[in-house]
């Protein structure tokens, strides 16, 4: 994972959860473009994209390995108006992220922390290992700084000896505890690889949460 910090003189501003399209152009005119979630909050000084390098990728390996400070990048956005959260939407705000799916959720949590923090926020972040947890100290810091913030990890492959959180894949019991009673009508955002999102969103519906209160963003091919 690499974070790109961008200087955008004419940026119109964005809402937490939105993404941008990045377009690369080779000298012979060949182009490739992909979408990346915005990791920074609307109030942050600079726009930040946090990019996961995909093994067979075309754009992400360039962004992670070739792009250098001072280079120019063509991007378009902000894009997407549904997978967004702003303070007026209320809560409780429940965020469920798998892998790099945490990126737009970090923007939301950061926006929450920068605001009046009037509603509870709870983040569940599933990662293969603690080393792969991005924004770790910042995210865990919210939980220690604010009574209304709750940040939990689920580590699926390996974990430190003194780790006391959830191990293995997420499950319905973990989601039930995270989301709380459905009568509280939490506003739930789920982002990650499709299999992760499909499972989490399906369980949340089975737990009684209204599909209209669950917003999803999915990435990655399924091969099916």
């Amino acid at each position, binding site marked *: 994972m690499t974070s790109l910090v961008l200087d955008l003189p004419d940026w119109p501003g964005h809402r937490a959860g939105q993404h941008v399209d990045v377009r690369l152009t*080779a000298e012979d005119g060949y182009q490739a473009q992909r*979408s990346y979630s915005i990791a920074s909050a609307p109030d942050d000084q600079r726009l930040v994209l946090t990019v996961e390098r995909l093994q067979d990728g075309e754009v992400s390996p360039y962004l992670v390995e070739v792009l250098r400070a001072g280079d120019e*990048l063509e991007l378009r956005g902000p894009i997407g108006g549904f997978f967004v959260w702003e303070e007026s939407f209320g809560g409780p705000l429940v965020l469920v992220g798998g892998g790099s799916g945490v990126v737009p959720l970090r923007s939301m949590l950061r926006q929450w922390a920068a605001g009046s923090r009037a509603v509870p926020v709870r983040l569940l972040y599933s990662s293969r290992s603690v080393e792969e947890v991005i924004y770790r100290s910042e995210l865990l810091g919210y939980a220690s700084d604010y009574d209304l913030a709750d940040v939990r990890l689920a580590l699926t492959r390996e974990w430190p000896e003194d780790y006391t959180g959830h191990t293995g894949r997420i499950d319905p019991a973990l989601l039930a505890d995270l989301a709380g009673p459905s009568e509280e009508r939490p506003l739930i955002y789920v982002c990650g690889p499709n299999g992760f999102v499909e499972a989490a969103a399906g369980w949340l519906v089975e737990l009684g949460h209204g599909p209209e209160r669950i917003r999803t963003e*999915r990435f990655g091919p399924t091969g099916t």
Partner: protein
Amino acid sequence: MSPISRGFTGRRRPVADPARLPPGQYEERGFPVLAAGPTPHTPLEQWSFRIDGAVRSAPSWTWEEFLALPAETPTVDIHCVTKWSKFDTRWRGVSVDTLLGGVVTEAEYLTAWSDGGYTTNLPLDDVTGGKAWVAYEYDGEPLHPEHGGPARLLVPHLYFWKSAKWVRGLTLTLDDEPGFWENYGYHNRGDPWLEQRYQGD
């Protein structure tokens, strides 16, 4: 003019037939899933398909009746606004021409609506004349819920968000009324060959 990206050459995969790839798209061999909410699972005995809105009478079909309608088996290229295209996808379903066959209307537009609340708007011209289907099989199998099963709209000549998953009906309208993504900044028509991704394209 796009700026040259220093050091970018691309990982150009051989595209079987480059003329079939719209601008800004790449060829995908898998079948990615995109959806704004949880996947609905409507039992087939509760499923129906309805044509309503600006029509004299509103036909509807149960699942069994729908399967008994004359079916077609289009093989088409599909194009997602998130940049992937997939060639030669094989479907089975009912042509929208068949569904609209007995319908008397002055409408020029329609809104396709789905389980889960999704909607998308289309000019009638874009779904008639052999250009659109309500598909219930993909690649010889019942359409998987993640891909819109039991049935989805299939309008392959437009970006794939127009091919509403979990479609349950078409509401014919006199005026063009933006649907779900069309209200969130995506292009009203979505022609991939004109790269109509977002409002203003």
